[in-house]
């Protein structure tokens, strides 16, 4: 090797590295974004100030950001639980649509006079089951034939999108409001609408945060979660120790689909208040993938990361007032995803100058780190 840079695998990454590296990656992405904005002829400082003011400065802005973070937390959790087992569910987008379709179906079907608690619970339950079933369309071939779930979940996204479009734009379905000249969904009755907490913020945020805590507990404190993480780290070792990889694939993908579908129920009930394909198809499912990766699949990490990405997204519309197109939001999200992915290298490897080599060779992996790895 001729380079002066020395790379050694880290046996164990401490919390400083695990949280510090993604954070530095976020900062780096914002710096690259600033350079691109400058090249495109805009003032990056003004852009970022506007973004901060419109998303996090003041109560109204914060409620707007949190309202957008609600479905993102849920789709982020959906991706995180699957990625934890190295099952790549890219179908959050489609599962969200299916949840919205099923949830609004229940809301329109049940009598209006029903109590909101029963109504909303039924919508969430049916939506979650429908989303899980949709995810099983990919999980069953994965579990039994090892069919690539990335391809199958992704293809199903396009099918779900066309299905939702068909229900509103292509037919006079149960969901479509026949009285409206511009095709749109029937408005849900009041009992099927998630109560507002403040402005646009609705109780969906509570559901999302509780889901994050539950999922963290499931993954980190139960034997089920231990098995899921073990399968993710080493499927062969898991199989030898008697864990059923097949059953876990089905349950994890089903759970993932259910979480994404609840995001759909939350949107249709708390935000669009009827099946509105254009308002629902805003890449919430895809953004969940970025969130899971940035949060390193930690359910509790998903919450702040979702709020951060929601802040970037909500501020997009305000940027137009200073002459910057909304699309910069997508660019920033992409850059964040990229830099955090690259940062993974610095989490799993120690990078230093060549001079350090002797010290490394003497010590190797410190015994304390070895111990910690065995316990975690």
């Amino acid at each position, binding site marked *: 090797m001729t380079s002066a840079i020395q790379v050694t*695998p880290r046996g164990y990454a401490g919390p400083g590295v695990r949280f510090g590296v993604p954070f530095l990656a976020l900062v780096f992405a914002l710096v690259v974004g600033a350079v*691109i904005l400058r090249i*495109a002829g805009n003032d990056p400082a003004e852009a970022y100030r506007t973004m901060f003011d419109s998303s996090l400065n003041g109560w109204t802005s914060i409620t707007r950001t949190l309202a957008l973070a609600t479905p993102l937390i849920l789709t982020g959790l959906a991706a995180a639980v699957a990625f934890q087992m190295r099952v*790549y569910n*890219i179908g959050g987008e489609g599962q969200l649509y299916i949840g919205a379709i099923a949830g609004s179906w229940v809301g329109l079907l049940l009598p209006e006079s029903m109590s909101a608690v029963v109504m909303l619970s039924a919508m969430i339950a049916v939506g979650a089951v429908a989303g899980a079933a949709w995810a099983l369309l990919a999980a069953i*071939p994965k579990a*039994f*034939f*090892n*069919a*690539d779930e*990335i*391809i*199958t979940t*992704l*293809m*199903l996204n*396009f*099918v779900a999108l*066309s*299905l939702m*479009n*068909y229900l509103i*734009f*292509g*037919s006079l379905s149960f969901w479509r409001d026949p009285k409206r000249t511009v095709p749109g969904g029937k408005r849900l009755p009041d009992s099927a609408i998630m109560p507002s907490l403040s402005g646009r913020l609705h109780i969906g945020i509570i559901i999302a945060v509780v889901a994050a805590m539950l999922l963290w507990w499931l993954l980190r404190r139960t034997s089920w979660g231990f098995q899921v993480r073990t399968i993710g780290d080493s499927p062969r070792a898991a199989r030898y120790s008697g864990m059923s990889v097949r059953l876990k694939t089905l349950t994890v993908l089903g759970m993932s689909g259910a979480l994404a579908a609840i995001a759909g129920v939350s949107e249709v009930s708390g935000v669009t208040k009827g099946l509105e394909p254009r308002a629902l198809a805003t890449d919430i499912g*895809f953004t969940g*993938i*970025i969130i899971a*990766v940035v949060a390193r699949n930690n359910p509790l990490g998903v919450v702040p990361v979702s709020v951060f990405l929601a802040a970037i997204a909500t501020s997009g519309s305000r940027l137009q007032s200073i002459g910057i*197109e*909304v*699309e*910069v*939001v*997508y*660019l*920033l*999200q*992409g*850059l964040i*995803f*990229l830099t955090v*992915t*690259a940062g*993974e*290298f610095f989490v799993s490897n120690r990078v230093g100058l060549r001079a350090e080599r002797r010290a490394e060779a003497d010590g190797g992996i410190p015994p304390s780190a070895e111990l910690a790895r065995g316990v975690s």
Partner: protein
Amino acid sequence: MNESVLVLSIASAVVASIPILYAALGEIITNRSGVMNLGVEGMMLVGAVVGFWAGNETGSLTAALIAGGLAGVGLALVHALLAVTLRVDQTVSGLSLVIVGGGFSSFVGTSGEPGLLSAPNEVEVNPLLPQFMQDLPAVGPILFGHDIVVYAGIIAVFAATWILNRTATGLSLRAVGEDPAAADAAGISVIRTRYAATAIGGFGAGIGGAYLTVAIVGTWQNGLTAGIGWIAVALVILAGWRPWLALVGALAFGGLNGLGFTLQLAQVDVPSDFLKMMPFIAAYLVVILVSANPGRARRLAAPAALAQPYAREAR
């Protein structure tokens, strides 16, 4: 059904298959070196917007295709940096390309005045072969009525097959994809080979995207590829990493894309949303069928080291 309708729809299926074909051929080369690049959709989008821009500036098809191809290479090299040098999870890295490519292309598409969203297409695409051949009944429009990019794509299928199976370069490439440690020991640079193969994949996807904008759609819209890149990724698996099977598959998907047009002309009433689902349902089903059939799956096996990063020191 009217005969000319059938002829026209077959001809349009051929054209519609071309972006998928270029992207899939590139992805086959990338995969054969052991690198999985799921970012085809992103590379196609970047190729599409840059190709459309270059076509608008110059009015030249060649310039549009080369610019689009190079834009695809640029994004592919990001994947190579992440997946080959930094050895991060190739699935995650590929997905990041999809999101970066989508974000970058919609940002570029709206930047500047008046912006590409409202720009007309300045590139003229002409049939390659002489008029009398195009005028032949049936075979004229289907086989001889196309532009140079279509024929080049078919030549590329043969070229890729020949290079992969009959040349030293192809042997090195496959060696790196099957057993990088052995290839390394034999003096082949695993890193350089994988960078080159990933770049070729980006070039193919970029050309596919550029052809889509300047020759088929004729405008730029955000997210214009609408899943074609993903179809190409699926197609590579379905084709068992073989160029000529990718050609067959691309034609089939091109046909499914054009099915709506055909049925409309034949006055068969199928909701357009269901027609849009067709290629995706087909890809979904075929991926499962290929996986469910172990004999076939074994014969058309994936490169042994696909998606596995290579670290010399960990050998």
